[in-house]
């Protein structure tokens, strides 16, 4: 399944490029992308579908870290949507 993300981003110089270069350099490629600027011009709404063999939550954390990205929701795995990237995880064993 191709991981999908929804992002809200500040429309600053380079903000879309930062998102795209993060996707590329972290080992993913864009399969689908929709961008819309708010009517008041304050926010980009970005929907992104990517493909890649690496862990999509790694990409989510890298995208969330971008200064322009105000919110990110991951839609790729059941149960993972909206999980904040910094939640402590306790794995079995």
């Amino acid at each position, binding site marked *: 399944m191709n991981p999908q993300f929804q992002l809200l981003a500040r429309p600053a110089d*380079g903000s879309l490029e*930062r998102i795209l270069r993060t996707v590329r350099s972290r080992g993913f490629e864009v399969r689908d992308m929709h961008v819309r600027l708010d009517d008041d011009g304050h926010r980009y709404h970005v929907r992104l579908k990517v493909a890649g063999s690496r862990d999509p939550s790694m990409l989510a954390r890298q995208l969330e870290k971008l200064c322009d990205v105000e919110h990110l929701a991951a839609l790729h795995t059941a149960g993972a949507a909206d999980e904040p990237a910094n939640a402590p995880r306790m*794995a079995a064993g």
Partner: protein
Amino acid sequence: MPPSQAANADGAQAPDHPGTPPAAQDDAANGADTVIQILRRQGVETVFGYPGGAIMPLYDALARQPGALKHVLTRHEQAAGFAANGFARSSGQLGVCIATSGPGATNLITAIADAYMDSVPLLVITGQVPTGLMGTDAFQETDVLGLTLPITKHSYLVRRVEDLPAILEEAIHLAQEGRPGPVWVDIPKDVQLAPLPAAKPMAPGEAAIADDVPGLDDMGLAQARALLAEAAQPIIYAGGGVVLAEAVEAFRGFVETTGAPVVTTLKGLGLLAADHPLNMGMLGMHGAPCANRAVQACDLLVVVGARFDDRATGRLADFAPHARVVHLDVDAAEVSKLRPPQVSLLGDLNRLLPALATPLSTEAWRAHCAELRRMGDFRLPPEKGDAFPALRFLRRLSEQADAHTHIACDVGQHQMWVAQFYGFPHPRRHLTSGGLGAMGFGLPVAIGAQMAHPGAQVINISGDGSFMMNVQELATLRRYNLPVKMVIFDNQYLGMVRQQQELFYEGRLAEVDLSDNPDFVQVAQAFGIPALRIEGVDAVDAAIEACLETQGPLLLHIPVAREQNVWPIVGPGMSNDQMIEEDVA
């Protein structure tokens, strides 16, 4: 003089830029004045830079406000970037560098990439061509924002002078907040020249931008404590993040309370005294055998401000194969990036470490680690031939230099020998290019460190290859009469590459011979810097005395054995179990 009449710094008449507003009147502030005012207000006193056409308004503002900032003119923009980098690394304060558009900005790139990899707080200011010319392939136009996206924490292009104050304040904050890093502000020439009311003085605290530091995570802490209590063979794997968090004391307290043995990365050297009984030393490719063995055997890895770099872990799949992992960091993106932890704790190490500290009863493991250390710490190898014993020199220097001595180094074998044999009392005394591994780092970084600590001893240990990459900075040293000591270990080779060709490319040496090096003593003297050549197996005392007793700058040219290797070494892509150690038989 309006810009249209001024000759630019490249000797040509400045183009008549459409849309360029006239320079502000002397008594009115413009964008450039505002930059200086804001830097001053943020406590910046020293900046490193190099002028040129598109940044001339800022230099003009410096000239009109003499004494507002101390500007250090280097002889190459890369060196300005590295000097700001050394200033910041050694002091923990913001480093600031300035350059012009085009070649000025591109020359900065290596130093800023270095700061990004090693999380160094820098503010980088470049001039850009006037907004009306942007996007026309104008003279000295490069897309600086585009170039800098991958090597900065953030970068800005200031399109309107009204935005400049807020952008600068935000940039300065961002560079230092959380995980520090370089932030780049590109300012078109017309924005620098545009009038702007003088920045009004701020009420105390008004400029403070709130940090988004998470509170203590009680559930995560309880889970981490449970893992600590269950562990029979815990190891603390600590790195540069402890220093960046200014949490060295909290870290030392954590170690004493838990009694867990510690390995550090290259960036964590000095977190514990080298002779501390729990200090197993540096892990990784050129790490101490005992450090790598302890990590491979441990059942719990408490990772504190470290990022599983491949030089530290070797082949990741084989790294600490029996360990559960508790990862403490400030950057959520570092957690699970390479090794998923059982528990991650994000936030301020000064709060997390005391909250996690609990005495552990792991006496048998501690005794085992002590034995590992007895068998596999860095050893001074037997003397070879009659060459100067560089490793003994470093060990002795660290015993005799005072605790405030800063050691910068370049990149190569000599860098690893510094890491292995100099016992750092504090990580900020060790200035090394870890993540980028950029040759040419040492001399300009030492200059920056000396500027930050005028009374301290600053010594740069360089290789003959690396030194040549920023040799022009001897002129900066002379100009400011900085008492930096420069030691060149001259093996007439790109030694680290030669070593890998010898070990991993069947001994085929390709383009590593530097036997035609210049006479380094004469080079230094040509810049007006005293220099000595020190040779031979018995010259350690003379070299140490020259370093520690000489007033003013000094270059020591030290020929060393040509084919000495760094041991141990884990081959690229190999597991840390597969250390190759020197065959001393």
